[in-house]
């Protein structure tokens, strides 16, 4: 079982958080912080497995992560998952993102948070691996996007809703986003 999937950047800002077991929000933040702390201080040339996330799981759980450009992809899994398998799954996930967004970068994850989730939903469901075949995943995602388009997409949202969003008083609208080299370079890895 996968217990959580976390994606955060080099500074620990979460970009995608998916827990398959309920944690209260403050606990979630703590977990993200702790995980970032554990992962970020590791060199790139050490192994991708980590034990000892004390907040999530305990001894049966492992953090399996990969670092791409500015983003860390961290999967928290228990002993029923194959470590190398999950590493491969992360690769599949990132490659799928790359295909769907065409050269995916951190900004894609920021501005298309929903889409990233939809893609993830085709890969992992309820903590269990649903599909590992990239073509199948991309196919299903695209079919659903097409359906959305045929409905007019989000732009066809009622005017009321749009104006409501516009008038929303967000205290922290990111003014200028200045990120250096954010393109995730997906190295082609041999399967497994």
């Amino acid at each position, binding site marked *: *079982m996968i217990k959580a999937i976390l994606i955060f950047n080099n500074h620990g800002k*979460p970009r*995608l*958080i*998916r827990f*398959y077991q*309920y944690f209260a*929000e403050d606990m*979630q*933040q703590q977990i*993200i912080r702790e995980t970032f702390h554990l992962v970020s201080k*590791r*060199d790139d*040339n*050490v*192994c*991708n*497995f*980590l*034990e000892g996330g004390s907040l999530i799981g305990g001894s049966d759980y492992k953090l399996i992560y990969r670092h791409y450009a500015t983003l860390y992809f961290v999967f928290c899994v228990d002993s*029923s998952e*194959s*470590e*190398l*398998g999950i*590493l*491969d799954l992360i690769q599949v996930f990132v490659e799928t993102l790359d295909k769907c967004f065409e050269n995916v970068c951190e900004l894609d994850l920021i501005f298309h948070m*929903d889409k990233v*989730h*939809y893609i993830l*939903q085709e890969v992992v*469901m*309820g*903590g*269990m*691996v*649903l*599909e*590992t*075949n990239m073509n*199948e995943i991309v196919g*299903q995602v695209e*079919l*659903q996007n097409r*359906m*959305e388009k045929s*409905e*007019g*997409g*989000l732009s*066809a949202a009622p005017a009321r809703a749009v104006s409501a969003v516009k008038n929303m008083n967000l205290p922290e609208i990111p003014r200028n986003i200045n990120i250096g080299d954010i393109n995730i370079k997906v190295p082609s890895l041999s*399967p*497994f």
Partner: protein
Amino acid sequence: MLGYDVSWAAFNIVEVMSSSKFTYKRIGYLAASQCFHEGTDVIMLTTNQIRKDLSSPNQYDTGVALTGLSCFVTPDLARDLANDIMTLMSHTKPYIRKKAVLIMYKVFLKYPESLRPAFPRLKEKLEDPDPGVQSAAVNVICELARRNPKNYLSLAPLFFKLMTSSTNNWVLIKIIKLFGALTPLEPRLGKKLIEPLTNLIHSTSAMSLLYECVNTVIAVLISLSSGMPNHSASIQLCVQKLRILIEDSDQNLKYLGLLAMSKILKTHPKSVQSHKDLILQCLDDKDESIRLRALDLLYGMVSKKNLMEIVKKLMLHVDKAEGTTYRDELLTKIIDICSQSNYQYITNFEWYISILVELTRLEGTRHGHLIASQMLDVAIRVKAIRGFAVAQMATLLDNAHLLTGNTQRNGICEVLYAAAWICGEFSEHLEDPMQTLEAMLRPKVATLPGHIQAVYVQNAAKLFATVLQKHEGETDSQVAQETSQLLIERLPLFVQSANLEVQERASCIIQLVKYIQKLQQKNVEVADEVTALFAGELNPVAPKAQKKVPIPEGLDLDAWINEPPSESESEDEKPKSKAVFAKEEPKHSRRHTEVDEKELARRREVRKQEQANNPFYIKASPSSQKVFDAPGVEHIPVVQIDLSVPLKVPGMPMSDQYVKLEEERRQKDKADKKKKDKKKKREKRGKGRKADSGPESEEDITPAQQVDIVTEEMPENALPSDDDDKDPNDPHKALDIDLDKPLADSEKLPVRTHRPEVLKSPAEDRENESIPQESKKKSSKEKKEKKKDKEKDRKRSKEEKKKKKKHKEVEEELMESQPEEAVQSEDTKEMAVPPTSAEEVTAPSSTAAVDTSSAAAAESEPDEPKDTEPEDTKSSKHKKKKQKKEKEEKEKKKKKRHHHHHHHRHHSDGGGEDSVQNGTVEDEEPLPPMSNYSLLAENSYIKMVYDIQGNHQDESKVVVSVIFENKSDSFLKSMEFNVLDSLNSKLQRPDGAGPHDGLTVPFQLPPGVSNEARFVFTVQSIVMPQKLKGTLTFIVKSEESSTHEKLDFKLHFTCTSYLITTPCYSDAYAKLLESGDLKGSSLRLEGVNMPFHHLLARICFHHHFSGALTSQRSL
């Protein structure tokens, strides 16, 4: 969402979820999956929406609903939607199928009852044409099987087939992992697996698969005890492959290789030990995870010979390590390695003590208490080392400022706790107690944590006693008086402590010392008395000792100490009414003392335990007086002072020198041994030690000191069984369900259909329904085959009609919350039969025959409701098929019928084991037995089921038949059955037995055997339901040991259990009708999905109602 609370939007999310547009629906479900959880209250509003989406024609609507649901499924949702999801498992689109299969796991977790009904279909999906669905099914079953492997052993052949045929690495990995979980339960499976797995290891190029194969082979080899010829070959292969992994440049593979290696280590340490070089090399790796794994491996590689060497290497690492976590890990590992299996590998405890002392110099470690407990443990258990330990600890105390100087190193000051205690407790070994005493009373001590100060104060008193003792005989008592003066000067500092413990101890001791000073001035000899304060040997207590204290016989902590108030009141009132106050008093006090004695005994027991566990408690028994003849201090080595190293505490020996010393000693030993070859003396060690398995002949290495490791104390007749520390809240525990048992109708998933009028079938329908019912009964006695078959036919068709009308929704809460009486009253009205008050029916008479036949009828009945299976929702087509099937079955039934009833006759008595194939049920579904015996209590040794029957001869008595079944492998004997009587119900005991004595069960139980015993109870009122608490005590006797066990139970007397079957013939019935005593009431019960006559049969069976039916027939 992203760690922010969005629960305020929960309701809006529900609104968006219910949008008809896919775009919004998808967003809604996404939001819900991110922020809904079991505590979200609006979640119950979503049930219908989700159901609608699940059955949507658009597969993606269904898809998002399933995905969303997988994240927030609650027990309620799981129960309500289980059936819908189950139908989706056979959806035409594989996309939906695989999602439905995966989500079933979540449903099982939340609603374990769904597992059995859904399992056959899940099994089907293992062979689904679509690889995605197949993989999902494998995934789910692997998750299930990981927690409760034994229930899934029967799937092994299927998985075996999949393993040999599948090419999907994901599926293969999962299956191989599953096999790893199954093999410990079935060694034969392991034997079969080895060959295909080794083939895979040789052939596969995928590292992940290779790794899992190696892992499972290891699991197989662990499960196979030994004796396989190619055993060592497989191990060799695994180790060899793992070596390749470890040597790989990829850090991930290196890590995994070490991980797997540590598994082999447990059973085959020798094969791993040959790779020691590689593992020591990994210790130098720059990757922390890998270093930690290598450390794990080291644990198993030590032997007497190389322990010092390995620890020396680790100590070097400790010095070099930069991160505190890694250093802490090293520290714990060093201690683990040294202390494993009762210090098995330590030959020189002086060396170990100095290692511990060196470890105290670690900066900022969190593990001060660990070092402290090791120091205490060694000092207490190894008597020979005490002198040395005390000397070391005294130095530590003297240099305490080095440890406490830095506030950041707070963790380490725990060590002072141990040091102070050791110096105090074994102060007779101290060279200069005066100096140590002075060190312990420095003002700086007041900055230490409270619990440490408390130990300081207490042990200062012990030291004081020693000093007095030493100087008693001398002519001028200067030293002794100085010491008292020192204490009196320094202790006030502690009296002011904020810590209560410190304050209290300091106050006590200061008063004591003042008193002693006075006596000293008068030249009174006090030393002996003061020492007597601290006399007594402290022995180590096993960590689980407290847990293992057997509960004294007859102690029931749940029982009332005094009678519960309502009852005692009525008791008290009687004497009061006589107004003899004086008479009442003694009665009261007598009872009190009796209770008090029991209570006191218990408390005493508890206190003894506490004392045993408390290192500060000094046992009072004079027999274990402290031995004062100190074994001398000769073997304290000459201390080397090395000032070049900055942080070295002066006066502390370096552990390194012991390595050299040890070498020399061993050389010498060898030489010695050659001389007196034969006499090889080995010291006695702790009981838990294992045979040495090191590669070298370790027998040759004798320890430096004659070491006597004191074994840990255990309470007398401690329970042998280790309590399993399973978490009772583990959701997977509920899924421990036997899947091979056939489905009972009560287990069917609730099916949602529209609710038609309940029980609107016309009256005649009911009439007809009941006629075949009882005619069947008659036939069971009279065997009128033909007529019965006709009626059966008629009944069949009726049933068929009725079924269509019938509502099938089972509202479980309703079923449970309604007391059985409700069913009964409904029944009363419909049948117009008279159980208006229980007494009427209980009128005893000898109708055992009727009883039997009714039981038989009921048993032959139960399971047409099979037909109301969930599939019914599907279509009427299905139903037609079924009708046909049933016709065929009727033919079969005719043949079987005769045989059946005979069969039932035989069985109706024994109840418990009955499971008779019933003609009316489809072939693949054997019947669940219907038995009057219900579970009384159960533990790992014994299972008790019981039945309550009225007594025909004596109305005030009921007989409780209890079947005892021995579930263990041991012999059970001396069973004693005891019940706490209530005012209403009393267990009948033989004459002369007291009201609290138990009854001996008149038999013993060999393993696996069951037997029945009957106990008679006298009952005052039968209109009062009762629950009686009781205990069964017994002795479990196995080959090695015999233990006392007990099992608590609650005997439940319902009013209906008092009923006795009585025939009521037409004239009596007519009279009854005339009398007008009959009352009727009705109650509507919804959600019963059983045909009426089954329900009736059940009610009759469980409540001894067959008299009612008979009387109706005679009408």
